[in-house]
């Protein structure tokens, strides 16, 4: 029974894990039990979902910007590699 009562630190760790859909069923049960007794963690959890949304949008945007090396950088690197050959 006592394993259902976890600390705020553990709760928020599981809560973060849950943001990636990787919390187990037991993990989720522990969350539920803790949320009943702790309003701070409940708030944390709610805000966490919102943060995930922001991170998700940011991630999408990052994917669209494919990053490459500049032509000049490549030339310099080419020279250096040739020197070592």
């Amino acid at each position, binding site marked *: 029974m006592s394993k259902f009562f976890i600390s705020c630190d553990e709760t*928020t760790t599981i809560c973060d894990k849950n943001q990636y859909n990787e919390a187990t069923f037991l993990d989720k049960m522990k969350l539920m039990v803790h949320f009943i007794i702790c309003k701070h963690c409940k708030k944390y959890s709610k805000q966490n979902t*919102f*943060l995930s949304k922001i991170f998700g949008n940011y991630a999408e945007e*990052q994917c669209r910007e494919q990053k490459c090396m500049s032509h000049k950088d490549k030339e310099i690197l080419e020279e250096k590699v040739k020197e070592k050959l």
Partner: protein
Amino acid sequence: MADITKHILIPEKWVQSYSDYLYNYTITRVNNDDLAKDLVQETFFAGLKSMKNFQGKASERTWLISILKRKIIDYYRKTNSTKGKAEVRMNFYNDGEREGEWIEERVPNSWSSDTDKGIVNEELKSILESCIDDLPEKYSMVFRMKTIQGFETEEICKELDITASNLWVIIHRARTQLRRCMEDNWFNN
């Protein structure tokens, strides 16, 4: 017979053929242009040095990537041992009677209700970026790989040589620190 499938190395063409691929691989992990270029360069140099060890079992690109991975891990280890340790801001009591409970001044604050309006917002984006950059190197790397690049947990663990529970603790600390930073710079502004 084995000669047919045996791969060979053509270092003269490395920069032309692989620098973009290696750079791209690196920049998503370290997010620092100069550092990424250095790591790519080091990879090519290390490749040249150990050419005689190349057995031709893997393709040139796979072989170079495996060198690069080592370089990134080495870099990660190096920063891990110096930077980062002192920067961890604790949110929970770590001993005593209240171990694991929120420290009063670290308890989540209420955010103003109009915060979700500007999700796609340049200013928010730049604050988020600077908050991620403010994280200890190890945290920001793991956070980026998991959250921004969307790598599988297992993949990250393998690449950085950490356990899954280790990863979740890092993600948790990164996220609590990030939310604090966002709270200070965005939500309560």
